[in-house]
């Protein structure tokens, strides 16, 4: 070991606490990057391999009923590689653990023998025998949630007919990686299931023999998807098609893809903040060391060491800290990644998910930290190169404060000397102060923004479930029902109020902008489910025109008064022009509202309703369930409380740990900065502090001079952090809000309070550690050493 290396090791040991604080900041930055990029690649690769192996279709084309021969007409469309048709229907299943039936999707299985689109992945048992109409395959997550194993039986009501089916196997499918009960988007394994059964049996049950109601299409490489979609719509239009759509509009793929792109964005924005803070810290630590060792530097230069050798000595110190931090970060990233796998597999039903350590990401994290160290180090080293060895060996003159503020006028004249010292020191190194302020504020902003977003989610849940939708349950019908059915519901004992609603699938068009969605027809002055404006006041639905939710208006780029084209995909399948009559606030989905009667007229099927919102009397739930069971028109019932609970569970689990992680991150950054700035300031002012003690200042009075500087830095960082955090939360909310859900940014005093507490707490802890060092300093030694 060369003497310089021995010095390096001893220096590192001497500043171990500071070095550790910087390493933690780097480790968190690199760890987050490795974790997030690892998931981007794990999820992408797993998804792509799963889609590929199980031949997930590129296009889904639902239709009311099309004869089988139409399949070959679809196959003739240029650009299509494979067409396959199937039967797709909703049903309900009854399980022992629940009072009311659960919505199920039923899909036909193709005959064996060739490769098929949307192949299932058998996880247990066997495939149903095509000749046995009573054999079914069950979605694995649903089976697990209810403890149903192959060999059990399941009571299913399909097309109005209730019968028992034998579960012969369980399966996963690339179609159902992420799925939720109809009308919801938070997965709840127990409340939504999929049944696969032989096509002949399902065709018989649905009266669809010789016909299909969904076509699956895979495309040739390079095919023009939009052109193919148009042609499919043309072919299927006569058969009652609501419009074909691509995989990108398919719920499961949409959620998974948005998760991946969200991770991509976060991984390229959050870790750099940590690295910038680390660069700043390395700079102040290295530059302090260089200033303190100025004479030694002059000495070794006088011995004949080159500038490069001296510079690389200090650079090695910064590099050692950075590379160790990066290595720790790598470990942290892998551990975090592994810990997150079960979280992902809870919501994303992938056949497997292995956390991949992306070598490229590790390498870039390492390179970035090396760059950070070099940047911080070289910036600090500039000073050495300006000095000749002789200059360097001469003791430095006292730092010059002659350009600083004189404090002679006004209130300043009343400041006591310790306060003047604090202010002059701050003003003498404005860049260091600014760096510290911005660094702390960035750490705080990151955590604050996330806390605000999570509080926003809470508000979204509350608004959605308690303000917009005040019903207890939604009763859906097998087919559209007349008003009489609603009256029947209303008349039931236990139901205090029932409100009809009509859902109509529609393609909205404004110029080139289109959106496939649906219109919700609400009765006049509804009580249970309402369209609300931005002040949460009910909007009176006009007899003409349509009210769009904010996200839908954004997607279509329309304002109140603009005209919109509606391609109604039900009933007479008309295309009509209508005016935007209002904009409604919405946090879930992108609904559009119309007056119920007006909507009925547009569809050409007035006074027909697809569902009803109901309010139940206290304790009447079981009675209502029992009565509804006997109504053949009822397809299912979904309880608002269950949807809300599913939402809350996700928020509590996810948000709880995220809040903790955000707190740790803000603490680490603040601690890293405050502790390092304090230690450097303490080193620089060791003699001043000792002199103050000699002059008869108490510990607390001497500590004020040092800690006062930090208090100012933290106090300046707090408002800046609040401002930056609020701004960042708006950016995040904008970036992550889609037509699936919108993130509101709300005034969140709790989030402000928490982030302030974390920063203040970190500052107090580091201040306490530093003042403990002041106490243990030998004042006579400090006086004898020459700065």
């Amino acid at each position, binding site marked *: 070991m060369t003497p310089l290396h021995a010095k390096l090791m001893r220096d590192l040991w001497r500043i171990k606490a500071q070095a550790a604080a910087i390493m933690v900041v780097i480790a968190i930055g690199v760890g987050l990057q490795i974790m997030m990029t690892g998931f981007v690649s794990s999820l992408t690769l797993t998804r792509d391999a799963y889609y590929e192996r199980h031949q997930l279709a590129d296009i889904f084309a639902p239709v009311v009923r099309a004869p089988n021969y139409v399949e070959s007409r679809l196959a003739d469309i240029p650009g299509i590689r494979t067409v396959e048709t199937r039967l797709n229907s909703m049903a309900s299943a009854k399980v022992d653990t629940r009072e009311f039936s659960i919505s199920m999707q039923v899909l036909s299985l193709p005959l064996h023998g060739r490769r098929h689109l949307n192949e299932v992945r058998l996880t247990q048992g066997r495939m149903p025998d095509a000749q046995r109409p009573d054999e079914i395959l069950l979605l694995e997550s649903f089976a697990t949630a209810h403890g149903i194993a192959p060999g059990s039986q399941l009571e299913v009501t399909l097309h109005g007919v209730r019968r028992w089916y034998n579960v012969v196997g369980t399966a996963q499918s690339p179609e159902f990686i992420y799925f939720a009960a109809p009308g919801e988007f938070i997965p709840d394994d127990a409340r939504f299931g999929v049944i696969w059964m032989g096509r002949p049996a399902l065709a018989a049950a649905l009266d669809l023999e010789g016909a299909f109601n969904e076509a699956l299409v895979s495309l040739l490489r390079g095919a023009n998807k939009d052109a193919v979609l148009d042609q499919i719509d043309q072919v299927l239009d006569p058969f009652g098609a609501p419009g074909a759509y691509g995989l990108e509009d398919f719920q499961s793929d949409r959620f998974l893809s948005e998760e991946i792109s969200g991770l991509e964005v976060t991984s390229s924005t959050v870790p750099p903040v940590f690295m910038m803070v680390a660069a700043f810290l390395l700079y102040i630590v290295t530059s302090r060391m260089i200033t303190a060792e100025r004479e030694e530097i002059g000495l070794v230069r006088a011995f004949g060491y080159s500038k490069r050798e001296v510079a690389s000595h200090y650079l090695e110190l910064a590099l050692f800290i950075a590379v160790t931090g990066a290595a720790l970060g790598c470990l942290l990233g892998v551990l975090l990644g592994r810990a997150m796998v079960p979280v992902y597999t809870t919501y994303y039903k992938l056949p497997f998910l292995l956390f991949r350590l992306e070598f490229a990401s590790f390498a870039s994290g390492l390179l970035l930290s090396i760059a950070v160290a070099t940047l911080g180090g070289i910036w600090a080293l500039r000073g050495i190169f300006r000095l000749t060895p002789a200059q360097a060996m001469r003791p430095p*003159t*006292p*730092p*010059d*404060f*002659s350009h*600083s503020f*004189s404090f002679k006028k006004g209130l300043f004249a009343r400041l*006591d*000397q*310790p306060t*003047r*010292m604090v202010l*002059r*020191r701050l003003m*003498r190194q404005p860049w260091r102060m600014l760096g510290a302020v911005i660094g702390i504020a960035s750490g705080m902003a990151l955590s604050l923004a996330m806390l605000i977003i999570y509080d926003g989610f809470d508000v979204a849940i509350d608004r959605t479930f308690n303000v917009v939708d005040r019903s207890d349950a939604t009763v859906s019908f097998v087919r559209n029902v007349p008003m009489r059915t609603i009256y029947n519901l209303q008349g039931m004992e236990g139901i205090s109020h029932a409100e009809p609603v009509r859902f109509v699938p529609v393609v909205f068009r404004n110029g080139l902008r289109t959106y496939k969605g649906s219109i919700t027809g609400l009765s006049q002055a509804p009580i249970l489910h309402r369209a609300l404006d931005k002040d949460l006041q009910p909007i009176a639905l006009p007899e003409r025109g349509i009210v769009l939710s904010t996200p839908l208006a954004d997607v279509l780029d329309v304002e109140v008064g603009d005209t919109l084209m509606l391609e109604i995909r039900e009933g007479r399948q008309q295309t009509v022009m209508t005016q935007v009559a209002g904009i409604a606030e919405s946090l879930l989905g992108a609904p559009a509202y119309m007056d119920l009667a007006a909507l009925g007229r547009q569809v050409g099927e007035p006074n027909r309703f697809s569902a009803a919102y109901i309010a139940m009397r206290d304790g009447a739930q079981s009675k209502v369930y029992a009565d509804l069971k006997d109504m053949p028109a009822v397809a299912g019932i979904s309880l608002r409380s269950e949807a809300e609970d599913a939402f809350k569970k996700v928020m509590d689990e996810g948000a709880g740990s995220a809040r903790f992680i955000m707190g740790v991150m803000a603490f680490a950054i603040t601690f890293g900065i405050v502790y390092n700035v304090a230690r450097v300031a303490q080193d620089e002012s060791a*003699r*001043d502090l*000792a*002199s*103050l*003690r*000699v*002059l*008869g*200042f*108490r*510990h607390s*009075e001497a500590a004020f001079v040092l800690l006062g500087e930090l208090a100012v830095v933290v106090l300046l960082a707090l408002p800046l952090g609040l401002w930056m955090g609020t701004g960042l939360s708006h950016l995040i909310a904008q970036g992550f809000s889609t037509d699936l859900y919108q993130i509101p940014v709300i005034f969140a005093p709790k989030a402000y309070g928490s982030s302030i507490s974390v920063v203040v707490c970190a500052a107090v802890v580091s201040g306490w550690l530093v003042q403990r060092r002041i106490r243990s300093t030998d*004042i*006579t030694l400090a*006086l*004898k050493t*020459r*700065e």
Partner: protein
Amino acid sequence: MTSAHDTDTDHAFQVQGLTKTYGEGHSAVHALRGADLEIGDGEIVVLLGASGSGKSTLLNILGGLDRASSGSVCFRDQILTDMDDRALTNYRRRHVGFVFQFYNLMPSLTARENVELVTEIAENPITAERALELVGLTKRIDHFPAQLSGGEQQRVAIARAVAKQPDVLFCDEPTGALDSTTGRAVLRVIQDVNEALGTTVLLITHAAATAAMADRVIHFADGQIQKVELNENRVSAEEIHW
């Protein structure tokens, strides 16, 4: 108030069997090996001796900057060796002024502010302007240390030390970093303070010639007091040459 030249009066310090050991076992360093001493109020006492002879250790203990390993120190009627950290801080605050070889000024404060740093917490201070006038620095009162020469910085340090009207002034090599002309000027200031305010002065120096301005000269060697000389013929600072 007692006369500065009347050595046979009240004692400022009474020191008995004072020892100071740094470290333990084989690495123990005996900085003071049992010192007995009395210092009268208003005296100028010069401590002479080689490096490591124990003079700085004695000064630090008398000044309340360090603690003795054994023995006792009385300052007037207070026993310094029994005091805790807080009491020692108060002792320094009320009774003691220090001047060091490297001035130890606050670079972020002007000359006036450096003095005010002390007058703000002292019980009976003179004004900063008056203290700086005493050391002849009226014209440079609003200059920062970086704008002052070494001698001027040391004079600010003396002004700061005497502004509280201390009972004792401790000077550790106050001229060590200065040329002889400037050094003499600094010693003149110390002598003036002693005469004007009756302050007891303990002064460490390497320059034996400085002893000529003392009432009493204490010679140190190997952690012990070798001899104490009474100087009947004090000279003024200007007459000292080294």
